[in-house]
């Protein structure tokens, strides 16, 4: 850190000692500023940045007052901690005081003799944070991807940091200088040939059923799935949340931009799903061909009290592409229901959601027929 050189941004640490009893309110700041020996910026929590700095204090016999004040930066005063690294049993922290109307606190440390100690001061500093971004370049076949991840360090804290150790997590750190109002983008992950899966998803609860009736194309969402496992070429660390931009090799030594998505944190073993865009070359047309009441039951007043329905849905999925595609089709049936007849296998995701995996050949077409009864409707 070089806070001492900045006028508007000060992190001042002074040590005074009391040889004779002095009035508490007469705070004396006389001792020269101790240099920071080491600074650590911890960014593993995306919501707050922890600064840890080490300094060597020269303590005198008796009660020492260590004054820590700041200006032009925003420090959470309740987060400030002092840890004595050397001679921890000889330097006893007696108390902490907050002077009135000041951005400061005072540690009271008692020593039996005079010596130098190394202390670590930790605090949460505002307006310095990190972002994670990804850049993936898929191959032409869309089976593998070169994935780079960047740490973007944004420092608007009011403080300059010089040669600080920046920790993204316990295992990942690097030395970096970053000035106030400076942003640094650093490559920290570069993996080649990661396995990816491409998928198309039609959710009947979200997308229009009959695209012919619309003046716009109904795009079928397309996603890449990256499993954070060893077999994919990953699986060592969690993938942090951040914006993912996906490109694809164009076969002419260049790339095109496929799209971008915001990915959440992906722990080891989990899958990152990146929605890149919509396909207009897969068209799903879904129509209800039948809906009638059956098993109608009435009360003594001849009013309908209970009935079932007999419903038939037909969905045609057409692949206009010259490559096969696996379409995930999600259907929803409300209420209590029984399947009367279905021409494709499905996975029941929950009580009301069915998921079909439909393999569509190149320039091929398949029709899903879903004949079901809803039961005991009132």
């Amino acid at each position: 850190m070089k806070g001492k050189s900045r006028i508007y941004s000060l992190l001042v640490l002074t040590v005074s000692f009391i040889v004779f009893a002095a009035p508490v309110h007469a705070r004396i700041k006389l001792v020269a500023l101790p240099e920071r020996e080491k600074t650590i910026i911890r960014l593993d929590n995306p919501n707050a940045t922890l600064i840890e700095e080490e300094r060597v204090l020269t303590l005198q016999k008796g009660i020492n007052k260590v004054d820590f004040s700041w200006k032009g930066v925003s420090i959470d005063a309740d987060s400030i901690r002092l840890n004595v690294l050397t001679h921890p049993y000889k330097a006893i922290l007696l108390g902490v005081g907050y002077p009135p109307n000041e951005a400061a606190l005072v540690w009271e440390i008692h020593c039996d003799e005079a010596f130098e100690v190394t202390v670590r001061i930790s605090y949460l500093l505002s307006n310095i944070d990190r972002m994670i971004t990804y850049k993936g370049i898929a191959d032409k076949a869309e089976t593998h991807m070169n994935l780079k991840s960047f740490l973007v360090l944004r420092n608007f804290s009011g403080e300059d940091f010089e040669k600080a150790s920046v920790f993204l997590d316990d295992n990942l750190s690097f030395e970096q200088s970053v000035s106030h109002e400076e942003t640094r983008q650093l490559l920290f992950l570069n993996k080649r040939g990661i396995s990816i899966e491409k998928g198309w998803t039609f959710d009947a609860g979200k997308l229009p059923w009959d695209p012919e009736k619309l003046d716009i194309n109904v795009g079928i969402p397309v996603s890449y799935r990256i499993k954070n496992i060893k077999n994919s070429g990953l699986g060592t660390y969690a993938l942090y949340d951040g914006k993912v931009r996906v490109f694809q090799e164009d076969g002419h030594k260049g790339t095109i931009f496929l799209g971008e998505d915001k990915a959440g944190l992906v722990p080891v073993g989990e899958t990152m799903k990146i929605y890149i865009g919509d396909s207009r070359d897969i068209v799903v047309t879904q129509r209800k061909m039948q809906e009638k009441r059956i098993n109608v039951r009435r009360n003594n007043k001849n009013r309908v009290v209970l009935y079932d329905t007999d419903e038939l849905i037909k969905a045609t999925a057409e692949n206009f592409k010259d490559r096969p595609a696996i379409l995930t089709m999600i259907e929803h049936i409300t209420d209590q229901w029984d399947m009367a007849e279905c021409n494709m296998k499905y996975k029941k995701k929950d009580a009301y959601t069915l998921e079909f995996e439909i393999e569509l050949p190149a320039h091929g077409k398949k029709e899903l027929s879903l004949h079901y009864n809803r039961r005991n409707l009132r």
Partner: protein
Amino acid sequence: MKNRLILPAIIGVLLSYSAVYAKVDLVTLPKRETVQLTIYNSADLTLVRETRDLTLKKGTNRLQFSWANTLIDPTSLDMLPKLKGKEIDILDLTFPPRARNLGVWSVESRMSGDVPVEIAYLTSGLSWRAFYMGTLSKNEKTMRLKGYVRVTNNSGEDYEQAQIRVIVGKINLIDRIADLARRKYAYGRPGPSPVVRPAPQADRAAGMSEVKHKLMRVEKSMMARPKEIKKEGLSEYFLYTIEGTETVPHGWSRRLPSFDVKEIPVVNLYKFEQERYGNQVMRFLSFKNDKAHKLGDTPIPGGTLKAFRDVGKEGRLSYEGKSRFKYIPLDEDVELNLGPVANVIVKPVLMDYKTDRYLFDGKGNISGWDEIRVFEVSVKNTRAIPVKVEIRQNFKTASWEMEKAGDFGAYEKVDLDTVKFTLKLGVRETKTFRYTLTMHHGKRAE
């Protein structure tokens, strides 16, 4: 690419950390060798890739890149050595304090000499759209279809001798590139952001004569034949690469021919559907994006088609109407809506109405009944060419029965409450058919 706007790439050898900000160590300004623009139309987005020859020295080199008065997204900046990649590491990209629209790459080189690098970024302000002109033959059995691409540059930058590629497809974007480009800080800033006013546009008038000069210079080097467009599919998108290079100064557009296909067989299709079009008959031109229709090489990007008809007199034309259509995949049917017409008439007339087959409950109240309507539909073609007419009827109930009589053509149940009749009519022919629609209500519907 331009000389007028500021897009300098400056390389220097790192002397000290502070020297970066003092900008005293800048030594060369390499010129661009090539520029490639990949322009999207589903979003305001262009991928720019340019190559430059840098002279690197052993050790840490710094490359400064600035882009004032443009709409470049700084978070997209990327640099890649095209040769000697194993000897060169891009260490980081820094956006220095108190400097807008400026980034500095730290490049560690284990060799000294010239290295071509590619600098890529996303920018806003360039756009393209497709439009079409169709000319029907005199008998309206075929159509000549010409496609065009119009590229417009409002990016703040002149692109000279740029290879132009356009992308058809809908990409997912989290942020608008224009918003990212206008941010005060490259990645924004933590905490509350100050309101930033957009930078005033530079006065372009002064540069107009220079732009015209550039264009005149380009015109002299133009090919004597129309340019070809190479089309290829990538992922879910189609990439159209325009042959050669183009110069598109800021504020200018260029119209580029996309394709020209003669004698596409077309069907004059007329549609009647009261729920969608009221009582009007709509005219469509119908064909298919396949080989049988002399198309089918690529999808057709959505756009507006203006349809004309050859009236046969000294190549004179009649304007038939225009149609805005959506993206047409390969092998997909195309129906171009040219709007309402009066020369094909569809008249459904209710000829009879009655209710019947009542059911009563134990208290003597009505619990079910049928509603019966008899329609007579006359379909008249007043044109001197044969036509195809499609009539759709919606019933708003799933419980119905239908009896048909007369010349109703092909009948199809579209879904639970919609039917379709498709008739082919010869020159000035009239056809009439009847159908009896029985709709069940109450207990009769069970």
